[in-house]
Structure formats: structure tokens, C-alpha cells
């Protein structure tokens, strides 16, 4: 067992035993859903219906259903795409990066964050499909030998990179999530009382027995999956940023875009994780697993990444001024003081200024403050993408082409509906799969049967420190 300093916060409170963990976390799976679940699920199904309706309308009518014009060719669609992909980053980040950094507080939040990743990427992909206007030719960016000639896809194009990046990210995240789920699915299988449950969980548990030989290999591949997922997370949003940054558009072409988008993605992802978990710990009564220490840590990540994003905003602004390039300078002045000034200042205040409230430790552990802040962060990060995309495009090189963009009701419906898609999947997830990683959480519970001995050990540590000799336990 690795040794923990006595000053560290307990990550599972309430004196839980191993079987308590199993019981608490499998409860939603084994009992019929609560009223709250039904309400949430019905609401998201209705919203999902809106999404289906508006998307179908778009496909039938064509992109004329949207508010795009020949100056602003990308607007809500790509904003929503980047927004959802960004949210999709926290899951793998929590699992992979925090695993590499051995941050144990990840253990009770990684499962739902990974699920969130997968659902968010599905939402993001839906915008890529619908923005094509003709989704039935969506296979065109895939490098297949062209049936009409000898042309291939253009490997110079960041849009093609994006196809590879997003699909790799989606499938690797799915694998990572599933590998993490196997031991927990086995737990559900071994507790199953109904035939159907025994069959389905048994099917997906792949005959897991809990053998140490298997656990050893399991830990090796988890570590390597984390090791490869970390650069993957960074690369995906970097490639998304290159959709913009490889262009010549002032406000888009800036070298800080890759790390800046990654920081923004982590920021927005943690915003969404907070939204979900602050609710989940209340509704599902997971306060002993998602403790104040967890909230505190997440709030700190939000603050740090928010400040990094803010630093990128300021850097861009500064370098535009410093560059001496009129076009760059105008692009940024137009952002801050042009017709879309409100979007810019919403972004600034939500992303840079608001998270500074987390310097206060009271704010970091207050669920109400955290919930409000998480919504603010989500709004701020949506506006960031809107600002980057629309304000850089709407006043382009020829003033005669300058135009304004206003979304149509269809676009707004698709945006709202995408939340329906997201929450629909999320509600199904918490009903059918354990939403906290039981195996990992059990591994950080102090070995309860030895409680007395542990006390004794802890005591001897302190005593010995004074003598200058310590014995590890």
C-alpha cells in the first residue's frame, strides 16, 4: 500500500466499507428509477425530439434554413461543434492526465466524465454532419479511391486532419471507458438477480474473474492508454484549432491557438463536469464519494485553466497591437468594440473574471456557487467560440462584403436540442452503468478491518519524526 500523509483529505468519507461502495453505486442500476430520473429523462427526450425535428428540417431544406450568408459561412454550426468537442475533453483529461499525475481524487469522477466525453463527441459529430448540408456524402473526407476519377482527399487540409482526430479520439475514448468499466460490469453481473441482467452484464464483463495476473496487465494497459490519451487529448483540440489557425484570416491565424484551445477545452470540460456532478452528488446521494475535497480540486482546475485562457486572450490582444499589422489590430478592436462587443465581453467576464471567485476556499466548496459558476463557464466558453468564429469572419477584407450574422430559430433549436441528445444519453448511462468507478474507489478506502493498527502506525510516524527515524508501514 502506498503511504498517505495524515494531512491529506479523505477522498471517501462516511467510513464506507467495500460492500457499502458496491451497494451505493449499484443501487440506481438495480432499483427502478426514481421520480427525479423519470422527470429528467422525459425532459431530455422531449428536447431530443426538438433536435431531431430541427436537424431533419435542415437536411430537407438545406443550409438555407440557417442564418449563414456568403461572408459568414461558419457560425452556429461550428461554434456548437467546437463547444461540444471542448466539453468532450475533460473526461479523458481526468482519466488520463490525472492518472499519470497520480491525482487520486479523479477516481470518483472519472467514469461520468468519460461518459460525458463520449456523449459530447457524439453531439459534436452531429454538427459536423449537419453543417455539410448534404450529410449523405459525409464519407467524402475519408480517403477512399474516388469513384469519379483519380483524386484523393487533400491531406494538406486541416478539415481532413479533423476527421482523423475526432474519430480516433472518439474510438480511443470509448475503448478507455470500456476497459475501465469491465471490472465494474463484473461486479454488477455477480450481484444480478434477474436473468436479463445476468446475461447482458455477463456478456460485457468478458468473463472477468478479478485475477491478479489479469489486474497486473490491466494496470499496465491502463497506464499506457493514459499515456497515449494525454497527447491525444492535446492533439485533438490542437487540430480543431488548426481548422482556424492555418488560414489567413486575422483573428484566426495566430500561433497560440493550439495550446489556447486545449486550455479552453479543459476549462469548458471541467465546467460541464461540475454541472453534472454537483447535481449527481445531491440527487444520487454521492456526497461521500464526491466530497468537498473533490469539489475544491475541480474548482481549482477551473480557476487555473480559466486564467490560462484569459492569458491567451490578453496575449492575442497584446501581440495584435505589438505586431503592427493593421488587419490584426482591426480584427481585435472589432471583437472588443465592434457590433459583437457584447459577445466578447460576455466571454471575457465569464471565462477570465468570474472564475477568480475560486480564490476563496468557501466558494470552492459551496455547491450552489459551483453550480452557478459551472453554468457561467459553459456560457462563456460557448461565446468564446462564437466570438472567434463570427467576429473574425463578419468583417472580412473587402468592406463591401461586411455582413452581420443572426441565427435562425432552426439553429437555436438545434443547439438546445443537442443538450437533449447529450442528457438523453447521460440519463441512460446513469441508469444502466455504474457511474462511479467502484474498483478504483475501493482501492483508496483505508483497509477498515485494520483500523486500529493504522491508527497505531500513524501515531508512530509522528513520534518517530521527532527522533529522526521513521518506519514506513
Amino acid at each position: 500500500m502506498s503511504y498517505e500523509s495524515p494531512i491529506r483529505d479523505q477522498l471517501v468519507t462516511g467510513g464506507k466499507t467495500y460492500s457499502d461502495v458496491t451497494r451505493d453505486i449499484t443501487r440506481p442500476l438495480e432499483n427502478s428509477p426514481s421520480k427525479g430520473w423519470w422527470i429528467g429523462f422525459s425532459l431530455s427526450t422531449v428536447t431530443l425530439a426538438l433536435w431531431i425535428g430541427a436537424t431533419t428540417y435542415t437536411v430537407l431544406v438545406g443550409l438555407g434554413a440557417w442564418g449563414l450568408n456568403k461572408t459568414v459561412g461558419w457560425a452556429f454550426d461550428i461554434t456548437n461543434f467546437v463547444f461540444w468537442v471542448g466539453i468532450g475533453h475533460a473526461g479523458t483529461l481526468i482519466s488520463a492526465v490525472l492518472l499519470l499525475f497520480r491525482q487520486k481524487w479523479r477516481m470518483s469522477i472519472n467514469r461520468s466524465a468519460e461518459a460525458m466525453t463520449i456523449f459530447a463527441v457524439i453531439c459534436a459529430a452531429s454538427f459536423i454532419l449537419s453543417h455539410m448540408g448534404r450529410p449523405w456524402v459525409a464519407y467524402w473526407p475519408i480517403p477512399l479511391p474516388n469513384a469519379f476519377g483519380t483524386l484523393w482527399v487533400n491531406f494538406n487540409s486541416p478539415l481532413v486532419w479533423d476527421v482523423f482526430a475526432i474519430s480516433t479520439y472518439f474510438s480511443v475514448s470509448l475503448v478507455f471507458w470500456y476497459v475501465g468499466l469491465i471490472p465494474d460490469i463484473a461486479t454488477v453481473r455477480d450481484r444480478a438477480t434477474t436473468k436479463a441482467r445476468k446475461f447482458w452484464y455477463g456478456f460485457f464483463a468478458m468473463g472477468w474473474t478479478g485475477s491478479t495476473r489479469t489486474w497486473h496487465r490491466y494496470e499496465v494497459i491502463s497506464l499506457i492508454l493514459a499515456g497515449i490519451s494525454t497527447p491525444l487529448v492535446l492533439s485533438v483540440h490542437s487540430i480543431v484549432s488548426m481548422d482556424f489557425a492555418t488560414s489567413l484570416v486575422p483573428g484566426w491565424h495566430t500561433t497560440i491557438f493550439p495550446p489556447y484551445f486545449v486550455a479552453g477545452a479543459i476549462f469548458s470540460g471541467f465546467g460541464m463536469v461540475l454541472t453534472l456532478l454537483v447535481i449527481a452528488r445531491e440527487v444520487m446521494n454521492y456526497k461521500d464519494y464526491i466530497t468537498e475535497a473533490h469539489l475544491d480540486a475541480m474548482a481549482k482546475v477551473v480557476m487555473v485553466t480559466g486564467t490560462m485562457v484569459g492569458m491567451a486572450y490578453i496575449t492575442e490582444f497584446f501581440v495584435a497591437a505589438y505586431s503592427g499589422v493593421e488587419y490584426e489590430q482591426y480584427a481585435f478592436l472589432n471583437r472588443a468594440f465592434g457590433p459583437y462587443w457584447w459577445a466578447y465581453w460576455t466571454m471575457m467576464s465569464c471565462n477570465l473574471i468570474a472564475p477568480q471567485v475560486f480564490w476563496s476556499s468557501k466558494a470552492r466548496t459551496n455547491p450552489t456557487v459551483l453550480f452557478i459558476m459551472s453554468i457561467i463557464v459553459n456560457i462563456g466558453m460557448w461565446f468564446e467560440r462564437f466570438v472567434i468564429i463570427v467576429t473574425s469572419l463578419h468583417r472580412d477584407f473587402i468592406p463591401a462584403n461586411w455582413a452581420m450574422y443572426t441565427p435562425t430559430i432552426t439553429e437555436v433549436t438545434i443547439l438546445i436540442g443537442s443538450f437533449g441528445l447529450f442528457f438523453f444519453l447521460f440519463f441512460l448511462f446513469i441508469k444502466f452503468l455504474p457511474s462511479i468507478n467502484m474498483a478504483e474507489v475501493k482501492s483508496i478506502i483505508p483497509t477498515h478491518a485494520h483500523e486500529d493498527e493504522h491508527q497505531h502506525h500513524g501515531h508512530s510516524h509522528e513520534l518517530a519524526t521527532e527522533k529522526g527515524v521513521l518506519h514506513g508501514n
Partner: protein
Amino acid sequence: MATKETSKQLILGVYDNPDKVYSTTKKLIKGGYKIEDVYSPFAIHGLDRVMGIKRSRLSIAAFLFAMTGLSLAVTFQVYVSYIDWQMNIGGKPSLHIPTYIPITFELSILFTAFGMVTCFFIVNKLFWGKNADIMDPRVTDDLFIIAVDVKASKADMGALNQKLIDGGAIEVRERIKEL
């Protein structure tokens, strides 16, 4: 080999605490017992080393898969954009190496992840729909089981039982494992 064994006789020590499992396993190994396996609801830190499990070579497999992905990605992109059909895009050379970086990277990761996880399933004989041969339904909940191979240990049953119980076992069972 004279005859192929069809079953194994195992003695199971059932525990409720990973620390006891760790120390008992260590003692048993020192005493020359052959431990078939230890079953636990979560990975016990350091137990694999105590049991003398060699470091898995899955990391080497991962590296090889990464190299496969990398070379396939480079070959394919070079073939498409340089050998098969060159195009002048923005005046860039047809062998535009910097723009190969993103896709090469992604495909290396994709191959590593899928290749390695597939190997993991194969070496552990895990597959969809497999009937699990579990020692106890609670081994995925809150019990830990040390399984000692009786024959290979050439063990005296009484002494072994005593050792397991001295280590804090809440129960000792016998089990025949079909091979």
C-alpha cells in the same frame, strides 16, 4: 509429460482485507507454496511483484503497434499525395511533410490503443459472452481469495490451512478447477 492434467485441486483462503492478503501471500511464497492466483475486487498495489508476476510485455506490443500505425500512415499519405496523384496546393511541395504530422500521430495512437487492448483481451482470454469462472460471487464485491495449487505446492493440507487461517482468513475452502 505423462498424462495431461484435467483438473487442479485448489485451496482457497477467503479474506476481507487486502493487507492480510498481501502479507499472507508473501509468507506463502516464502514458504515455497505455489500460488495459482489471487482474486480481488481491485488491484492490490504491489501484490503482483510479491507473486513474482513478470512485468507484462504489453508495453512492447503497444510500441510495435504504434510503429505500425506510424509507418502505415506515412506510407499511405506519401502514396496518395506524392506518388499516385500530385496536386499543387498553395504552392507547397507535393511531399508536404509537416502536414503529414497530425494524421500520422492520430493513426499511431489509434493503432496502439486498439492493438494493445486486443492483445490484452487475448492474453487474458477475455471475450464477449465468456462464462466467468469465478471463485466466489463476492470476489468482485468485497472478498479477496488466495488460491493455492495443492499438488504443485506439494503441500501438507493441515499446515497450509493453518497458514491461511493464521494470516487472517475468514474461511478456507477447497475447489477443483477444471482445466
